[in-house]
Every structure is written in structure tokens, then in C-alpha cells.
């Protein structure tokens, strides 16, 4: 039997991320994902998951399949993509993280609005607390939480000079059980390969879309039985790991 292939972009911001375009409404994200042929997407706002439910409603049975996600900013100022098995688990993490964010109000003129928008593009509410901030949760505790709640953790843009794991923490240690590593720019991968000690992890790349035109520009193809969280988790485990095959060529210092 042939296993179907699914085109996946698991790093998409919506109107709830202050730095994201206000065009990134639930309906618009779904329309764009269909146009560019994505089969599975994940909505990953900064420290929030809420808009994922509306994107899922907008997609409906016609697709794409929508996974509930978050881009968590940990105490170490590391960005982690988290993918949750269902919306209840996602909301549980949102509530935990929200309580650990500094109680600082967003300045919409400077950072942009943080808007919850339903599947009909109706505004539900404006989030007041600034989401572009570190939650007082350590990277180890976040990963432990994910493990205990059947969720996936993929450090975002690990080679990026801002909020990337290698920049912030020097290297990717073998000790933390991540599910994959996201690289933003594959041309920069060689520079960080010597710092990836956990060589068995899959290396993936997603769009990190803040604008509609970004969606699907970077993506991976997974072969799974059906477009569900459980199948995605299984397929990720067998996704290629470039770090092992490329080996550790000497890289230039990052800074």
C-alpha cells in the first residue's frame, strides 16, 4: 500500500502575535494554505494557542488539517515550537505560560495589536498583556511538561542570532529529548552543525510566516497514514536527520 505524502508547515503566526500582520486572520490563513497546497498546518503564536481553534473551524473538513501549537519563549529566551495532541492540552499550556509572563501591557503602536479572531474574521478580543516576552519557565521544564502531556517540542530557528537555541545556550545538548530541530536558513546549517551534539534529531524547516505570502514558503513533506497529530508525531520520528549525515564540519563562530 502506498503511504500518502503530506505537505506541512508547522510554524505560522496569526493576528494574535503582535509582530504578525493583521491580515493573518483564521480565514485568510486557511485560504492561503489551500492555494499553496499545504495539507497540514500548525498555528504557533508567541506564548498563545487560542487562535488555533478558529483556524481549525475555518478549515473544517475540507482542510488543511490544523494542529494546535505555540511558540513558547522560555526563561533562557529560547523559542520552542510546541505542538499539542488536542485543544484542551494546548489551552492548559497557554494558561500555565500566561501566568508566568511578566504583567506588562502591550503597546500596540510599537509592537502591533494582539487579536483573537474567529473563523468568520470577527474580532473576539484584544489580548492586553505583551506576548513578546519570556515566560518564567525553563526549557527543561517546558520539555518535561510536553513529555508528560503527549506534546511535541521543536526548538525554533536554532541557528538564528535571536532567540535561537544555539545562540542562547551555546549548543544543542544530547540530554534534552526534543522531537526535531527547526532551521530557518539551511545555508547557515553548516555553521551550527558542530554545536549539535544530539545528532539523531530530525532537522526540519518551516515558514515562520508573519505575512500571508510567507505561508508554505518553507515546508516539509511527511509520509503518514492520515493527517492527524498522532500520525505526524510518528512520521517526524523517521524524518531525515541532516546533522548525522553531514557530520560536523568546522563552522565559523556565531558571533
Amino acid at each position, binding site marked *: 500500500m502506498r503511504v500518502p505524502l503530506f505537505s506541512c508547515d508547522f510554524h505560522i503566526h496569526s493576528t494574535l502575535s503582535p509582530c504578525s500582520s493583521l491580515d493573518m486572520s483564521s480565514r485568510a490563513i486557511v485560504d492561503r494554505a489551500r492555494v499553496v497546497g499545504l495539507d497540514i498546518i500548525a498555528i504557533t503564536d508567541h506564548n498563545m494557542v487560542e487562535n488555533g481553534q478558529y483556524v481549525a473551524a475555518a478549515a473544517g473538513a475540507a482542510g488543511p488539517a490544523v494542529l494546535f501549537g505555540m511558540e513558547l519563549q522560555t526563561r*533562557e529566551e529560547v523559542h520552542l515550537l510546541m505542538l499539542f495532541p488536542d485543544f484542551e492540552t494546548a489551552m492548559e499550556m497557554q494558561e500555565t505560560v500566561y501566568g508566568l509572563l511578566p504583567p506588562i501591557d502591550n503597546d500596540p503602536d510599537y509592537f502591533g495589536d494582539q487579536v483573537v479572531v474567529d473563523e468568520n474574521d470577527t474580532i473576539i478580543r484584544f489580548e492586553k498583556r505583551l506576548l513578546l516576552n519570556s515566560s518564567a519557565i*525553563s526549557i*527543561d521544564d517546558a520539555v518535561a511538561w510536553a513529555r508528560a502531556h503527549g506534546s511535541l517540542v521543536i526548538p525554533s530557528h536554532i541557528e538564528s542570532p535571536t532567540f535561537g537555541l544555539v*545562540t542562547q545556550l*551555546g549548543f544543542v*545538548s544530547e540530554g534534552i529529548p526534543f522531537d526535531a530541530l527547526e532551521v530557518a536558513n539551511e545555508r547557515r546549517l553548516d555553521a551550527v552543525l558542530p554545536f549539535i551534539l544530539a545528532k539523531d534529531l530530525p532537522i526540519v524547516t518551516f515558514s515562520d510566516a508573519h505575512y500571508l505570502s510567507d505561508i508554505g514558503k518553507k515546508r516539509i513533506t511527511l509520509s503518514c497514514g492520515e493527517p492527524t497529530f498522532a500520525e505526524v508525531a510518528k512520521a517526524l520520528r523517521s524524518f531525515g536527520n541532516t546533522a548525522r549525515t553531514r557530520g560536523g564540519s568546522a563552522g565559523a563562530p556565531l558571533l
Partner: protein
Amino acid sequence: MTVRELAEALNLEILTGGVGLRQEVEHGYVSDLLSDVIGNAPENSVWVTVQRHVNILGVAKLKNIAAIITPRGLKIDGELIERARAEEIVLLRSERPAFEVVGMVYGILKKA
């Protein structure tokens, strides 16, 4: 100057007990980006950082950093302290913010 002399002179709390206190400190470095520390910290430094992830020990080992100072009285995990003891890296803590800690370290190392 030894790590012990530095800790006593600046009234720093020693979290790792008696290990590593006789190591010599010649320089200082301050940064919270571990990649920056790997690239730029001088050997035999004392390092001031708010980072408390276990990777700080790997970086300290790599750069022969004798002691790490945590500012602002931030809480340190017992596990990190145990690993630091095993690696003979001294963990020190100050109630003062990093800016003041760095100022004091600079002043005393300049005199030494």
C-alpha cells in the same frame, strides 16, 4: 587572585561548597548568550550571567571558566549545583544586579 579570595572580598555566596576555590581568576566576562561566551570569554575568567541552564557548565568547562556568578539572588536548581560540584566549577551568587556585580569584579581584578 583565587576564587575564594574573590568570593570573600565581594561577599558572594558560595553554592558549591569547598570545591574549586583555589583556582586562579585573572579575567572577567559578562554575557547571557552562551554562544558569545564560547566565542569571546578569556580563559581563567569569572563569568557573570543570569542563565541557569545546565549548558553553562559545558561552556565554563570549554573556556576554563573557574566560577560563575548569578546576580540578583536568582534561584538555582539543586541539580545544577550537584553537576557543578562534579565538574569543579564554582557557583557564586550575589543579591546585587549584574551591573553592580560586574563593577565590583572589575574593580577588584584591576587592583589585583
